[in-house]
């Protein structure tokens, strides 16, 4: 039924000759190998120079050694994360030294975590978008819009659950619009989300008439998210932790996460691997919008208000946190843990400046410097690794 052939007669081997057998025992020397009866019958001149065939095993075993010591745990705490943790520890030490009485108190730590929660949730969404090769400038404005929409008198009349649902839907809906403009409208993410930033703020101002909308009586459930404590921490911190956990799982354990890296790292390769890049991009922005909706609920809980001025410049903090966390702005690489550590660094700095009664302008300068230093350090560690 079948016969073995080559393109030319002299390259032909007898039928049944085994081609190359990768599984051949590696301890054979070339001379032995060529002596096997099925190898086509070319008696092989022994080459004194040729190293034994197990040479490649030597190279490979060398290659494996360090890899073996790199278990999942080692990888989890890769150098750059360790750097971020170290920076955080350093800041804590500074806090302990400069404000021994107020920094390490429970109330201050709760304060730091509550502050971090709102932007933290946004940062999770931002991490997805940036790993996927995009950027979302509209996050702060979307959060404001969602908080305003959820606190209008009309919405409030339906009770706290509808308010929460409203915030989530507004966020996700606006995110979808971003996604449509970018993936199907082929707009540059920077421009599409910049337009959304401006428009969403405007809409929020219009809906609230530039007034701060208080959460009404009967809807205190939302406020209780920040006042009720479980094991000493307000509920909203748990919500933040939950979002981080879900985000981590989504990014690291699901096809959605894996495809996010592919879409951001090499969109053409992703497309040719059968990934619907446009639909995926759309979903990424919707996800970011949804996170803004969640953040809106948290900020309503903390401030008891909805306002068009909420979340001013949050987009910059979120992007900075993601970058400090080691995510490439060009996409394809990054981690949630890194982003959260980056965010905590930022929040602790803010806290330290406030505790020490320092100028907010200096705080901004310090933050700017930190971004530069973090990125420079990452560049160094990247280069040393390749």
């Amino acid at each position, binding site marked *: 039924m079948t016969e073995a*052939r*080559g393109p*030319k007669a002299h390259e032909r081997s007898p039928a049944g000759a085994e081609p*190359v057998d990768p599984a051949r025992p590696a301890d054979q020397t070339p001379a032995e190998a060529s002596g096997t009866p099925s190898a086509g019958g070319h008696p092989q001149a022994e*080459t004194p120079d040729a190293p034994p065939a197990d040479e490649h095993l030597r*190279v490979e075993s060398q290659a494996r050694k360090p890899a073996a010591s790199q278990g999942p745990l080692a990888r989890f705490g890769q150098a750059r994360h360790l750097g971020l943790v170290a920076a955080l520890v350093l800041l804590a030490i500074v806090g302990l030294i400069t404000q021994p009485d107020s920094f390490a108190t429970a109330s201050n730590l709760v304060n730091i975590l509550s502050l971090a929660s709102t932007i933290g949730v946004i940062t999770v969404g931002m991490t997805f978008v940036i790993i996927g090769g995009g950027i979302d400038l509209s996050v702060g404005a979307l959060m404001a819009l969602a908080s305003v929409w959820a606190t209008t008198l009309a919405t409030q009349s339906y009770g706290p659950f509808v308010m929460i649902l409203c915030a989530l839907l507004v966020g996700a809906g606006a995110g979808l619009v971003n996604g449509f403009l970018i993936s199907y409208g082929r707009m540059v993410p920077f421009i599409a989300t910049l337009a959304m930033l401006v428009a969403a703020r405007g809409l929020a101002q219009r809906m609230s008439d530039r007034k701060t909308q208080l959460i009404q009586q009967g809807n205190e459930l939302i406020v209780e998210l920040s006042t009720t404590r479980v094991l000493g921490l307000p509920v909203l911190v748990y919500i933040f932790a939950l979002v981080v956990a879900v985000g981590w799982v989504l990014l690291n354990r699901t096809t959605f996460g894996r495809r996010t890296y*592919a879409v951001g790292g090499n969109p053409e*390769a992703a*497309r040719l691997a059968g990934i619907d890049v446009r639909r995926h991009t759309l979903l990424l922005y919707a996800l970011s919008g949804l996170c803004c909706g969640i953040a809106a609920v948290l900020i309503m809980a903390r401030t008891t208000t909805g306002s068009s001025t909420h979340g001013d410049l949050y987009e910059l903090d979120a992007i900075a946190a993601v970058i400090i966390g080691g995510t490439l702005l060009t996409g394809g690489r990054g981690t949630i843990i890194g982003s959260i550590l980056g965010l905590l660094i930022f929040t602790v700095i803010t806290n330290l400046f406030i505790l020490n009664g320092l100028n907010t302008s200096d705080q901004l300068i310090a933050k700017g410097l930190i971004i530069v230093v973090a990125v420079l350090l990452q560049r160094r560690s990247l280069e040393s690794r390749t």
Partner: protein
Amino acid sequence: MVADPPLLLMRGIVKQFPGVRALDGVDLEVRRGEVHCLLGQNGAGKSTLIKILAGAHQPDEGVITLDGEEVRLVTPTAAIKLGVSTIYQELDLVDGLSVAENIFLGHEPGRLGFIRQSDANRATRDLMTRLGHPEIRPTTEVGRLSPAAKQVVSMARALSHDTRLIIMDEPSAALAHDEVANLFRIVRELTAQGVAVVYISHRLEEIREIGDRVTVLKDGRTVAVGLPAKETPTSEVVSLMTGRTVEYVFPPRRTEPATGPEVLRVEGLTVPGVVADVSFVVRAGEIVGLAGLVGSGRSEIIEAVYGARRSSGKIVLEGRPVRRGTADTVRRGMGLAPEERKAQALLLDQSVAHNITLAGLGRYARFGWIDRRREAAEARTLIETLDIRPGDPDRPVKTLSGGNQQKAVLARWLVDDRKLLLLDEPTRGVDVGARAELYAVIRKLADQGIGVLLVSSEVPEVLGLADRVLVVREGRIIHQSAADDLDEHQVLDMIMEGSAL
């Protein structure tokens, strides 16, 4: 015979990468005006050696002497200044810039930072004419060129410097038969002027044709120096490279024409400007080869079939028409190993395992949740089957040698749940030993009932692996017949001159 020192002498070069000793004391001696070939299996260290010579990597140990003088090649610019220019294995052109801008990047003609574009364009036109490609215009954006044309541009860039040594890392991998002849003409011109050429290729017949002397690397060590390229028997070279004898055999193919169900039917496929009214059928268990020149429309045909390119006409997969879009075709069982691994297939920062499993993620996932055990197990199996080295699934794919990266691209699709595989230059950059393994894997999949559509610039590969051959010329199929009824010369005549049988 050689009284004056050789042009280039490298002694005891060592290069350690994290986890791999890529070079472990390599020697290389190149004389003026010779074509010195560098041979070795995938991952032997050839590219690493020439990157050291090009100033792109720094050696950990070793001495480099140029014209009797010890030199340190600290940067690519330093190497170019010393007259060493390089054509890298992985194209390194800037897609957004024009041909002329790419060629003169870093040494633009002009003064005080102002570029004299007309000079650059004129020089580019001269270079292109010299390379036999006057149709590549200086102002064309490089991103729009075919891989073969890009290869010509990198060659022009190497020639645009004043050089005494040109290094070519697999320059012919992206080229078709006639282009290679063109390349060789240039190489002969250069050597006649006393320029030395270091030439890397996995095609041994090329070495025989153009080479003067051969150095063989194996696992980061020199195992033979200065072998005469023309006289050394192929079998000896191969056994030096691999440490064993390799028969360049194609797996047995079916002796009777395939009669299985049609996997793919293409009717009147047209891609404006490239492919005109192409019709053919691929049956289950059949390997169909597309032979043709680079630019004849071969790649466009399979990309259109895959839904990755706009086209008109009818494409029917297993009796049902295909909608446009790769998500649909992949779901229905197609797979494409594209022509340019770096630009079109690989996620360079990701691990080998993630690259391999990217397209088949759905197979290991339930409700979007990846079963990582199964994923890792499957990746490991594929790494073993194709002998990807180093075999660590977690290593970033960008640290693999070119040939091993190519194997990773193929591994992505060489799974048995596919119905139709589209392979565009599947063995580009893969060494002789590994090729035989790849052929065997492809044939085995076909025997399991998968249809395969194969594009290759190497006519012997098409004739040896395919059951049926379609000859493509200027966007049309000008001939089809069983591979057994054709020989290499007939196919070459048809793809070049279009003379039908």
